[in-house]
């Protein structure tokens, strides 16, 4: 079950790598911000879609130890919200996969061997975009109620599918 959840966003990832998708965010109404393209997100009254929420979880598990709480950077590694705004999807995904030696003494590790992080790069990107363009605040977001149910249904379906395998 867990594995299915972790990998559910891979098609988006593959699509985005092909470079066919452009990104933009739009304020649909006062309380709702959405972003299209790689790292699509919805922020509504401070709540988010399930993929963006998954991105928050992955961020706190895999990235926060160096990049600081809520994507805001630390004395050790930069603010990722700004990185996402400046460098875009391909650079973001590529750096997570390949790592980067910034300068002597400053190294970003490669996550190529970590299937959990690799499978969640689009969700991480969604979370970062939601924090930036989407105006999402700090801390653990909640999932938009109507989407919570959809998400649970999807999980159950995935569970059934994997049980059948």
């Amino acid at each position, binding site marked *: 079950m*867990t594995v299915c959840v972790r990998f559910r966003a891979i098609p988006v990832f593959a699509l985005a790598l092909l470079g066919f998708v452009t990104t933009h965010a739009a304020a649909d109404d006062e309380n709702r911000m959405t972003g299209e393209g790689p790292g699509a997100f919805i922020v509504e009254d*401070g709540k988010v879609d399930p993929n963006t929420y998954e991105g928050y*979880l992955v961020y*706190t*598990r*895999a990235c*926060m*130890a*160096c990049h*600081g*709480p*809520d994507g*805001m*950077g*630390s*004395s*050790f590694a930069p*603010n990722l919200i700004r990185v996402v705004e400046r460098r875009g999807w391909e650079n973001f995904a590529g750096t997570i996969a390949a*790592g980067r*030696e910034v300068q*002597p*003494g*400053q*190294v*970003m*590790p490669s996550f190529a*061997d*970590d299937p959990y992080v690799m499978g969640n790069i689009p969700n991480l990107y969604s979370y970062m975009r939601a924090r930036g363009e989407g105006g999402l*605040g*700090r*801390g*653990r977001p909640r999932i938009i109620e109507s989407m919570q149910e959809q998400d649970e249904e999807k999980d159950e379906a995935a569970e059934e599918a994997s049980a059948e395998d």
Partner: protein
Amino acid sequence: MLRVTGFAVAATGLLAASVAHANQNQLELQQNPEYWATQLGNYQGNRFSELDQINRDNVNELRSVWQFSTGVLRGHEGGPLYVGDGRLYIHTPFPNKVFALDLEDEGRVVWSYEPDQDSRVIPVMCCDTVNRGLAYADGRLFLGQADNTLIALDAESGDLLWDVSNGDHTVGETNTMSPLVVHDKVIVGISGGEYGIRGHMTAYDVESGEMVWRGYSTGPDDEVLIDPDTTLMLGEPIGEADLGVSTWPEGEWERGGGAPWGWVTYDPDLDLIYYGTGNPGTWNPDQRAIDGEPADNKWAITVFARDPNNGEVKWVYQKVPFDEWDYDGVNENQLIDIEFEGEERKGLAIIDRTGFGMLLDRETGELLVAEKFAPETNWADSYDMETGRPNVSDEYSTFRQGVNVNTTDICPTAMGAKNMQPSAYSPRTGLIYAGINRICMNYEPYETEYVAGQPYVGATLTMMPAPTQNGEMEGRMGSFIAWDPVAGETVWEVDERFAVWSGALATAGDLAFYGTLEGHVKAVDIENGEELWRFKTPSGIIGNVNTFMHEGKQYVGVLSGVGGWAGIGLAAGLEDPEEGLGAVGVFSALGDYTKLGGVLTVFALPD
């Protein structure tokens, strides 16, 4: 292992003459109040200086005489050594440069040394690429590099004398600690509790770098170097064999952490070294339980008293059985002689990660006092003085609350109510002076899988300032306190905006010194904490304030250079727990006050 130990004991006997010589040297140096020959000032870890040229009456005239940039970013922990040769010896975080600086010539570089290290070690250091400094004895400097290479340098020339590998960074083992020289051995632990390593303390021969003994923190008794019939626990023999195996789920002890990465202290009369071990591997307690019930996970978060000659364990005391909060037990064990209930006792005092100030008998390991120095502490109400175990609160038990449940408002945070920043003890006042953290956390364990060289954490946490009371500074994240280790009471307390992450210094000049994360060095009246002097260094301070005298002049030296776990956690500021409820932003971001960069600043009074 046993064969090696046996040989070492025999060799020690044969080389008795040189043993005495090496031991004598460090002991003699630290008994000279003009020197600062070991990171904690003396073997007992007291960080106290008899010097009083700089004192309560003239400290307001203290000024910087020179500064030296190390050229290295990242967190600068530890401090300068002075052994009477007119030089200061300092070190840096990765790449672990070493400098000999001419004290009389405004810090001119006499020699420098830079190891060649694999940069892949950087991302496997959990909490910045810090290093807590050099050790010295008999004309040799000892450095534990980030990549686990222990080296000896000739102090006169900076030439490499020997190097030896103490671990493997490709499986997540790293080094941040300062070694300690005892007799003819240099003793060093290891870091990597967040990577599922198996912690150990190891002794190497000062002359050759050959390993003499290694005592693991977990596993069978013959590898921990415990004898269940003679090793004491709470004053009685342990009795049961191999608790380092049986208190874990099948095989989990092999990745059980217990990394001893803090300070080692030593009692020359009892001939015992003391240190604490870190967290038990994964931060998800569920993966360390046996049949769904808490298991002790020995000997993580344990104070060890070992014979430095062969590593044999005299006694153990586990401060937190079955950790559920990452309360690494590595904080320094201050060796202090005290009067307890009308009797002279050889005490061992700890300002512990857990928020409790503890006092033990250092001959037997009996627990004498356990009281909260950080009153917000809520994970346990108290300690049971009979069993030595904490009375854990179910509400803040991340195990009882469960996997994938976010247990909220636990105090203190995983950073601890005090982290590695070493405290000071003045025998004149009988009090301990310590910089502490006032931060709480939410903690959510999750299932994690062990992969060598990858993080093995299994919990996410967020932090917020601890609640305040009685008009304390709102949103404050740190304090500097004077603690009575016998009464178990705070005598005075000064609040600071950020966690106080620097090592303290107490002097016979009636002063206590500490540094702040904004970059101030402060001198306060040792009687009441009143601030008497401050100086703003170029970056936040997580190093230790040291003092020494050269040619009749007392100096104070400190490394600044923000970073460490404090820099990672606080740079962007903490989450405001009241956010959305209209509270104003009292929660400060460290990044608004200071940036990276290592500098040594040396102070003295005007001529």
